[in-house]
């Protein structure tokens, strides 16, 4: 039965169900239980924003708090994955990848290829992405393009509680290393989610809105900005098709191209910085493989080429919004009409 729960609860439920189902699933990260060794409550935090709260009571020592050493514990999750466990490691903020990136892209991502196909590394690395919490330059990045660039890594970034649960379960069951990106501004977002366990395969985009005039490609929080823009535009008589990528690597280019073939117009929205972004990647692939369907320039709506500023007004201006998306759509639709 489906009920309305938050994205935070959807993640918690996915972890809970997978840990129940499969004894090789373990979770680890800084303060994901909370209170380890401390004089007060043992299960005090459940992660810095409470996402894993309550799992310790159910699964005990299969949830591990870690010392503040990302290289060591992310590496340990990867090592454990190569010898039979299916660890879910939390990196807290994706911004911290810089202290442990080697383990992710030179180790986990490359084992299978370097070892001639003999290794499997079923590790899932959960991390918070995105701006909007006034957390400034070192706690608000997307960095999704950096991981997407690396062959051997899968990269997922859901936009709804339903997808979150299904994609997280899909990621845990996947035999490749997956970077699972949770937008921190969406933890309280609610949506219908079945109680039972289900898995969404990685690499399938979702057309969240149909429309014949312009394709908008987005992922994560930007799907909602795109949809909001699409609603405004509908009232102006412009019908947008919104494609939620869900999985950035592997990428479901077919769904994007099919949509562009129908609309002839493409706007790519990305909360990441613009250079070498997901928006650029999708734009380029369409310009190569579906050029003939394009009736106007492709537009990209992204964050600017700057770090994330702290001041709320600046941060709001940093994050692409529905107005900018709508403007881009209007302009491309007008051009190619």
């Amino acid at each position, binding site marked *: 039965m489906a009920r309305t729960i938050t994205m935070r609860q959807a993640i918690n439920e996915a972890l809970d169900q997978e840990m129940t189902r499969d004894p090789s699933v373990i979770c680890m990260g800084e303060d994901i239980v909370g209170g380890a060794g*401390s004089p007060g409550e043992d299960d005090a935090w459940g992660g810095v924003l409470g996402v894993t709260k309550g799992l310790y009571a159910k699964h005990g020592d299969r949830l591990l708090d870690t010392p503040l050493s990302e290289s060591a514990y992310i590496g340990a999750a990867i090592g454990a994955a190569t010898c039979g466990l299916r660890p879910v490691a939390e990196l807290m903020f994706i911004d911290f990848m810089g202290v442990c990136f080697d383990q992710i892209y030179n180790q986990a991502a490359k084992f299978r290829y370097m070892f001639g196909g003999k290794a499997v590394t079923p590790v899932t690395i959960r991390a918070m992405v995105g701006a909007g919490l006034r957390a400034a330059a*070192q706690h608000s990045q997307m960095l999704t393009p950096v991981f997407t660039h690396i062959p051997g890594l899968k990269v997922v970034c859901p936009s709804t509680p339903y997808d979150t649960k299904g994609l997280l379960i899909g990621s845990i069951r996947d035999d490749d290393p997956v970077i699972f990106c949770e937008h921190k501004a969406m933890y309280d977002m609610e949506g219908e989610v079945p109680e039972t366990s289900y898995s969404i395969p990685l690499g399938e985009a979702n057309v969240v809105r149909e429309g014949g005039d312009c394709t908008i490609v987005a992922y994560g929080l930007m799907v909602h900005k795109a949809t909001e823009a699409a609603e405004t535009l509908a009232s102006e008589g412009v019908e947008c098709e919104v494609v939620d990528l869900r999985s950035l690597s592997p990428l479901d280019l077919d769904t994007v191209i099919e949509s562009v073939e129908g609309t002839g117009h493409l706007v790519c929205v990305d909360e990441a910085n613009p250079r070498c972004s997901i928006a650029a990647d999708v734009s380029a692939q369409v310009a190569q493989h579906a050029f003939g369907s394009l009736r106007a320039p492709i537009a990209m709506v992204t964050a600017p080429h700057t770090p994330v500023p702290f001041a709320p007004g600046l941060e709001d201006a940093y994050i692409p919004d529905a107005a900018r998306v709508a403007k881009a759509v209007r302009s491309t639709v007008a051009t190619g009409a």
Partner: protein
Amino acid sequence: MTEVAGARELSKEALLDAYRTMRTIREFEERLHTEFATGEIPGFVHLYAGEEAIAAGVMAHLDENDYVASTHRGHGHSIAKGCDVKGMMFEIYGKDEGICRGKGGSMHIADLDKGMLGANGIVGGGPPLVCGVGLSTKVRGTKQVGVSFTGDGGANQGTFLESLNLAAVWELPVIFVVENNGYAESTSRDYGVAVDSYVDRAQGFGIPGVTVDGTDFFAVHEAAGAVIDRARNGGGPSLLECEMVRFFGHFEGDAQTYRAPGEVDDLRATRDCIVRFRTQVVDAEVVTDDELDAIDEEARALIETAVDEATAAPVPELDELLTDVYVSY
């Protein structure tokens, strides 16, 4: 008795300065705690209340040419290093006149002119940078030192550990202060570390160290003086571990259920570094209660004005979003 002796070794001016620093930090942090609850302050805020004696005791030996790399819990270090208090308050409110033009916020307060290399949102971000400070003074033959602050949790980060080795190998004029407040977020220091002392750890890299009670300003002051002096005079790096207490949560909004019931009240009653300092200097009869009360009032007024002005101040213009990415483009 020794405590009184310590108080008698410093000039009256130095004592009043130290008290002013600690009092200003405390006032700053207590007020932020209140203001944060009103919802006016954006973002993540980590308060230094309870830990003031370390910032004051260490920074007393530094001047503007010396550099400090701080942590996410950086307000105390910044104030003690001479950053403009109002500018900091403006920054925390995200205002245009903030010390970083509102672009950094609490976790990124910096002022290179004052030798403050920045609070840091990345735990372990600072120690390598401070090795660079030490390197620059060695290359140029100046007498500056670099000091990095790292928490008991941060001292498990590879960047910190590598820096111990680099500083030892290059004999850099660098001091690693470990601020051991017993917690890394909600995790006990004893869960994250398998040994009793960070000094032993440093010795394994060839760095001498000392542990002091961080709630005793004079203990910190004396130990910091010795290691900074040694570094300044070519004696190489040291580690200074300060055992200390945190009066608030890890960040504002933390319910702190991982702490023992009554823990913070106890600490406030028995291990308040400012109360201790006051008793020490008044008992030593070098400073009067009245003089200290006057500083209390001064600090209160400063923070009051800072908050009033900060709340009223203009936010950055939107075109500030795109400036300061590069020096030249």
